[in-house]
């Protein structure tokens, strides 16, 4: 899987929209355009002072620009002080960004169909995958879950109008799409698969840990390939502090692996759930 070497750049904020909304979308100009693998992330800071001290991990949502002038986009939800400070930054102000980081989704096997599952802000790592697959005209379906319709990503953010993929929306309160948890929909669909479909399917999932767990367990039982994007608190984001480890299977023993380096995307079978 191609992993371009991380760099540390200063980004000049071009837009930071979503004041008051649940999801913010921030766009920054960076020195050079960036190629990244969906699921890879960046460490982002830029607020003044040393409190909070550490940068925050955000999935790479979109990149663009041309030689000598790159652009990068993130979407984020305000859950605490760091994201609150991000949401208060204005165009023209700067971000410190280390990117691209970690191992993204493996989309490179030929002849597979994909299910992309995003819970909550998890869509931030599956949309980029959808964009890649759309460009390839590779078949996929997308399942997006949220508490309410407001917690779903704004329609206009959903990638590729002419995408070959179909998107299923689920809300726990039934205010949009299927009334229930996205997990239920995905599990139900898994159970209905033909052996042949099972063999060709790869599930990519990002979201709350228990959502990932339910999907992973079901997928393992049915022999479906699944890749999950995990989260953890991070200090460095590029593998030097060993702070972000999760427990993985290493044969019949377990080992601690870094989410920021060996992950954030892991094969569902590797994870000790």
């Amino acid at each position, binding site marked *: 899987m191609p992993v371009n070497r991380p760099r540390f750049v200063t980004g000049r904020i071009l837009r930071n929209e979503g004041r008051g909304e649940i999801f913010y979308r921030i766009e920054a100009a960076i020195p050079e355009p960036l190629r990244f693998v969906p699921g890879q992330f960046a460490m982002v800071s830029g607020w003044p002072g040393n409190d909070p001290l550490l940068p925050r991990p955000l999935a790479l949502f979109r990149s663009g620009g041309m030689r000598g002038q790159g652009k990068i986009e993130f979407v984020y939800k305000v859950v605490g002080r760091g994201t609150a400070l991000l949401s208060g930054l204005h165009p023209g102000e700067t971000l410190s960004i280390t990117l691209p980081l970690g191992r993204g989704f493996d989309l490179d096997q030929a002849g597979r169909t994909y299910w992309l599952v995003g819970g909550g802000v998890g869509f931030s790592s599956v949309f980029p995958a959808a964009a890649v697959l759309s460009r390839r005209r590779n078949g996929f379906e997308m399942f997006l879950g949220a508490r309410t319709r407001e917690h779903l990503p704004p329609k206009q953010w959903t990638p590729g109008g002419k995408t070959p993929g179909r998107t299923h929306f689920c809300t726990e309160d039934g205010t949009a799409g299927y009334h229930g948890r996205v997990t239920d929909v995905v599990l139900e669909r898994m159970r209905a698969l033909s052996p042949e479909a099972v063999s060709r399917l790869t599930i990519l999932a990002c979201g709350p840990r228990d959502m990932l767990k339910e999907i992973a367990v079901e997928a393992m039982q049915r022999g479906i390939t699944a890749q999950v994007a995990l989260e953890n608190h991070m200090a*460095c984001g590029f593998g030097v502090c060993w702070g972000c480890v999760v427990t993985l299977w290493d044969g019949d023993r377990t080992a601690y692996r870094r989410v920021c380096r060996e992950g954030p995307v892991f094969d569902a079978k590797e994870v000790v759930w």
Partner: protein
Amino acid sequence: MVTPDLSASLGGLRVKNPVLSASGTFGYGIEFTSFYDISRLGAVIVKGLSLAPTAGNPPGRIVETPAGMLNAIGLQNIGVERFIGDVVPRLEDFGATFVANIYGKTEEEYEAVARRLSEVPSLGAIEVNASCPNVREGGMAFGATPEGIAGLTARVRKCTGKPLWVKLSPNVADIAGIAKAAEGAGADAVSLINTIVGMAVNYRTRRPELSNVTGGLSGPAIKPVALRMTWEAAKAVRIPVIGIGGIQSSANALEFLLVGASAVQVGTANFRNPRACVDILEGIEAFFREEKIAKLSDYRGGLMVEKNP
């Protein structure tokens, strides 16, 4: 004006400048080669090494605190053999001056690691972590008393001809006494401070934030304590003192040099700014130029304190 001479002698190891990376915050050094040429640093100090590979503590290893962070990594590392086999050759290729930070559960383990590393010609020095707060046995025990430090230092001293640095714990009442003990037992330099033992809990879940319950506090929050201890140690010993703790900028690094440090180590700052070490190095150079300071020794220890009544 000619470029200032920033070189320093750190207990037998000559470094081209006083900016070193702090153990455990710089991986094995290789990770930083995508950000800059690590041979520019005075030295790269790698993650603490034990005899066998170590798994470390369960997840729940770090938590952010005001202007700082707590860590309880538990010294996860690949062990001395893999370090020598896989990492050393690459550090040599990159032309880096590198130092091994070592750790043992017993004095015997410290000795064994030191002995093995002494066989590596390109290794610049050995830094004994006599102060890791995040492992149940060893570590802290050795670091807490002058006797403990003297005993450990003397034993490791016998096992290596490499420059021997002893890294001190700040969790003591009298850092000067501890530093003297290390000097007396044959340390070529002392480095301080390691992290201060701290704790964080979640008042809603009623659980500790760290699987190890307590962890080591690092970052800007501890700088005033680190600076004070560096000053006290530098006054107490003749061997070089390497200052560590909360250094984020060249201004911070200069503060440590001013109170008597021969060099500094940059730790937590590497996380927010992977280029922190070179930024600090360039800042020191610029300051020396601007102030027309020819060499490090013209500035080091130059703190002016009025005689107190």
